């Protein structure tokens, strides 16, 4: 857990670098910071249009655009954070070799920056829920309050994976490409586009093997079905989060000394 302790010690730097990442991304663009709102808004508009006029929406999850929106936003966080983490040492190599910043800062920044994007987009999700509630198509309740806890556990799991991928990517040139491919595959194997219930009974066990599955089931419970997350899902999420963090930290610690040299 030493990487975690170092991240905590340098948390001010992690936050400052994450903020810089956001600021630099939108600096010089006309909409500036509003891009972080505009992106999910556009995404929502696309889903609403496509599933109203082009594809038949799933009958079991209506309004389907709302169902999709939450899942896709959060999946966007997971995949972008892991993709960033897998190349963070390549991108930040000079910084790593020229300053005394601890290397674990960089995967943490990747996760923190992408998490900030997600959090900035949540008001759009809230507005979409409110709109559907106003139309009478959704009935939000206190179950929404489970969302921060689900996101926290998910972030812990993503940080663990980020530590793992970032340190492996330093030694293995193909980690970045593998990550991109696996993420594309995982997008369809994770209940993002469909509810977990839609998976045939005999594949449910298999779905359990996907570490992301419980997070997305829980997410849908919190912001779409507005019902309590099942106890087994809580247990799975905590187990996955702790396990990934431990595994990521251990691998990172093992490879840590050579990161600055090899990056």
């Amino acid at each position, binding site marked *: 857990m030493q990487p975690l302790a170092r991240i905590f010690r340098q948390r*001010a730097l992690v936050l400052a670098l994450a903020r*810089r990442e956001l600021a*630099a991304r939108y*600096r010089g663009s006309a909409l500036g910071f509003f891009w972080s709102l505009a992106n999910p808004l556009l995404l929502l508009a696309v889903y609403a249009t496509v599933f109203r006029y082009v594809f038949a929406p799933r009958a079991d999850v209506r309004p389907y655009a709302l169902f999709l929106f939450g899942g896709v936003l959060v999946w966007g966080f997971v995949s972008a954070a892991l993709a960033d983490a897998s190349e963070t040492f390549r991108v930040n190599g*000079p910084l*790593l070799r020229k*300053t005394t*910043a601890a290397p674990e800062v960089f995967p943490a920044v990747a996760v923190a920056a992408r998490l900030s994007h997600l959090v900035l987009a949540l008001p759009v999700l809230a507005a979409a829920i409110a709109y559907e509630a106003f139309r009478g198509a959704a009935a939000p309740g206190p179950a929404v309050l489970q969302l921060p806890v689900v996101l926290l556990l998910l972030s812990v799991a993503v940080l663990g994976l980020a530590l793992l991928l970032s340190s492996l990517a330093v*030694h*293995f040139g193909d980690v970045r490409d593998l990550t991109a491919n696996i993420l594309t595959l995982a997008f369809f194997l994770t209940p993002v586009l469909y509810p977990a219930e839609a998976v045939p009974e005999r594949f449910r066990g298999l779905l359990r093997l996907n570490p992301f599955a419980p997070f997305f089931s829980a997410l849908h419970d919190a912001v779409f079905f507005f019902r309590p997350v099942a106890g087994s899902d809580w247990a799975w999420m905590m187990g996955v989060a702790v396990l990934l963090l431990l595994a990521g930290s251990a691998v990172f610690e093992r490879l840590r000394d050579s990161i600055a040299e090899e990056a």
Partner: protein
Amino acid sequence: MNAAVRVDHVTKLYRRYGRKKSVGSLKSALLSGLGARALSPDDAVPALVDVSFTVAPGESLGVIGANGSGKSTLLKLLAGIFRPTSGQLAVDGRLAALLELGAGFHPEISGRENLEIGGLLLGLTRREIAERFDAIVAFAGVEEFLDAPVKTYSSGMAVRLGFALAAHSDPDVLLVDEVLAVGDEAFSHRCLEKFAEFERAGKSLVFVSHDLPLVAQRCRRAIWLDRGRVAFDGPSSETVARYRESVAAEEERQRLGDRSPRLRAEGPPVSVPGRVGSGAASVESVRLLDGAGKPAARIASGQPAALEMEVRAERPLSDFVFGFAIQTVSGVAVFGANTDLDGLVAEDFGGPASARLEMPACALAPGIYSVDAAIHARDGSPYDYRRDALRFEVTGDRPVAGVWNPPRTWRFGGGVRWKPAR
């Protein structure tokens, strides 16, 4: 002794993975069985070999050496960025590393935001940054540009900001890697003042530079790294002198390895570059003679020697001066004399002739020297000026710092006693 920096038998090997590629693939590692084997080095490149030294509090240590000699590796080890393969390093107190000025500055965001991040990167807390902010900005002189993105800064401004930040991070040990070369003269002086301030405050400085005069002037002590080993550790002027000699000797060896040996008793008839003049008279050849009057390429320090030039006047001249100048290969002027300075008054010079300057003792320090030979008018306008017309080597039993190797004796009074001579 209470050392600020202690380096104890440190060796650093750079590891190279994979036979063909420097980066292996995870796929192949998984296929061949992931484990220690996949991460074991195929070969190792030594960057530092058994390096030991200490730096006392308040001491400035210069580190010099050729590119690839391990200087930057040493700083990265001291900064904790790299780990030594074997041996121990210890730094006592807060450390700031200036390995690149403005490292970590992001071009798209403002100087203000960059200063905060740069400060955090140097290990300052937010509060410390806030407290020192105005002083840093004033030292860098970038007040008006503070809220502009750093990409709009001139390189000089970015450098000043980077140095100001590091200088105000109040370290106990400051590592500096070749960064002052980029600033203008005035800023370099302020940097040097800041370094002096550090020293007075008992802070230590490890300073890597190719600017040898600066190292000699700024640091009392210097180490010379040669292919990863400490070749010399001592007073900076002596370290610099030894390093220069070695570079010159190496250059000479390479030249001798070429087909056109320059270290020889006689100069070539024409060496077009470095030769200027009207051509009214010409220096045909230049040579060094030993005490017996025989041409020589090497001369022992302290022995008699003579410089001789064969000359020819194309038309009779009544205004002429013969001169020789000697410098070290690195360009330090050692000696220059001509017939005019030595009080000879020209009358007539026509056709072939020779001019010889005899010296009863060649009191040069061991090393390699370059000779310029010239014939010119009294007002200095050259008939033929040949730069680097000849190179010769002065040999000696013992090294000496500087270029002068006078005959000398040590004498002592009082309670000083010496063991029998080595």
